[in-house]
């Protein structure tokens, strides 16, 4: 049995018009935030749960952490149904909502940590070990005595991550953990997530719309759009599955004058040409042959487009 099993969950939000004696039409609008989603996650995996804003990522995380009841479908996390047994489930999980800190705003960070230590009944040795482990990576020492409101976003996120891990949970849910962070901090946070996954065998599910998070962290992604699961599998899979495009950069001896067939967005400057080809309509040897017929290739690189380009392309396809 998998650690997390999600079977056909649906979440419908009913939005009532605001209570007002003047607005008597009481028709509620319905939003299918999550629409018949199923997946399984095994112990030790890192799953990237991706989708645009409003795709249903946070709703899924809230159902998994036991805060929300699905409208239909079943979830089990390590044999527990989270929304039926919220407190038991809560001991096994750590949750970070990127936009919402669980630290106490006006108190020094250490106060929140001490609180969580007692709340989760973490024994002294485990607490010390965990703190040393976090400190080694993030140098928390300088931050602990500062009130949370005086931390930068990045510092706060690091502390929030550690707070969620203090009780050594088996599962870590991260809802947009890198939102708003600068590149260095983002990398730092990603490295940390990777490290705890590898060393502490914590199963991680992170939602994001930052493609780089996924590229750095997870080999498996679940892509959702408007509450529906669009893809579940390895990143390489989505790359092959969704686009068969290659970015080709060529440097030639003579200025580039040729017109090539079936090529999108050629970008030509003298002897340098960049273009994207679709492998279903064209092939790399074809292109090389076509160019070397009248010119000499000095250098050539073939790249897979990155995930961001792919998803952009993919979203456009959905909209059509």
């Amino acid at each position: 049995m998998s650690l997390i099993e999600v079977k056909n969950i649906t979440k419908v939000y009913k939005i009532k018009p605001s209570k007002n004696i003047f607005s008597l039409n009481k028709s509620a609008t319905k939003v299918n935030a999550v629409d018949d989603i199923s997946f399984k996650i095994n112990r030790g995996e890192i799953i990237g749960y991706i989708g645009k804003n409003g795709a249903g990522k946070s709703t899924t995380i809230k159902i998994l952490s036991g805060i929300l009841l699905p409208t239909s479908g079943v979830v089990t996390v390590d044999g527990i149904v989270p929304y039926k047994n919220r407190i038991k489930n809560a001991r096994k999980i750590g949750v970070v909502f990127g936009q919402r800190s669980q630290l106490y705003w006006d108190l020094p960070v250490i106060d929140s940590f001490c609180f969580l230590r007692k709340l989760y009944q973490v024994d002294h040795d485990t607490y010390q070990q965990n703190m040393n482990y976090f400190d080694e990576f993030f140098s928390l020492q300088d931050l602990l005595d500062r009130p949370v409101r005086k931390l930068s976003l990045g510092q706060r996120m690091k502390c929030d991550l550690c707070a969620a891990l203090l009780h050594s949970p088996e599962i870590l849910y991260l809802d947009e953990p890198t939102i708003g962070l600068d590149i260095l901090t983002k990398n730092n946070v990603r490295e940390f997530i990777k490290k705890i996954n590898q060393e502490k065998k914590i199963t991680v599910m992170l939602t994001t719309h930052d493609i780089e998070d996924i590229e750095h962290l997870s080999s498996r992604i679940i892509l959702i759009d408007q509450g529906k699961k669009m893809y579940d599998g390895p990143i390489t899979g989505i790359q092959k599955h969704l686009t068969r495009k290659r970015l080709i950069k060529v440097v030639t001896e003579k200025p580039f004058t040729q017109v090539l067939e079936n090529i999108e967005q050629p970008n030509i400057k003298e002897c340098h040409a960049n273009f994207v080809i679709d492998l279903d309509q064209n092939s790399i040897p074809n292109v090389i042959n076509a160019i070397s017929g009248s010119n000499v290739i000095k250098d050539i690189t073939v790249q897979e487009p990155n995930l961001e380009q792919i998803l952009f392309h993919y979203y456009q396809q959905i909209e059509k």
Partner: protein
Amino acid sequence: MFGKYFSVLEIGYRQSVAYKGDFIIGSISTLFRMMILAYIWTAVYQNANTTVINGRGLIETITYIILAQLIWSVLNTNLEVLLGFKIKKGEITRDLIKPINFPLLIFLDNLGFSLFILLVQTMPAFVIACFMFDIQTPASILHILFTLLSIILAFFIYASFSFTIGIIGFWAQNVWGISLLKKLIFNTFSGSLVPLFLYPPMIQKWIYLLPFKEIINTPLVIYLDADLQMILSLLGRQLFWAVTFFILSQISWMYLKRKIEILGG
């Protein structure tokens, strides 16, 4: 096991320390309220040309007034406003990912706040008031113990009531208005401003049927003189209201829980 619950109380206390930098002002204003009320009632007794009103002498009235202020300033937290705020701002999600019963969390957090008010704000005011006015000493150790027990029940009643009110406010989308109404009612019918025994007997009869007197008047009547039989019957009534409001708060919690689970945090 106990440490888990104590941690919530402690963080409630620590938060109040951080928020309430102005506890000196709070302390002074508590003292002022005690003084003003005591002077007013002294003047009433002097002008009435009598030593006893409705069976109570001046010292009893002043003792009542000052202790009522002490209890009220400790009980009178903004639990319902805090609760409404948590729901509205979605802060409740961060409480719901924790392995603890939510009403209990709110209750203990609030208790931490009350303890802070008691120790830092109200006690100093009370000690000074004790030097300024004649205050009746308790009749026996037993009276002190029963009074404390009664105050604990009072805290429980008031917190459960506020929790329920907070959720009604959320439902009515007007926590603030309902909170104001609540305070108005308690100020009138609990004994926090006017000792209940000074109301005309007709009105007293009605007030005694209501639960509001349980949080101030009941502990003070026990403190002032009640005999054992009366104490037990008063505590019995308090317990009845405590259980009633506990049930009401649980029902409203189930309603809120359902709402959050279905409507989202």
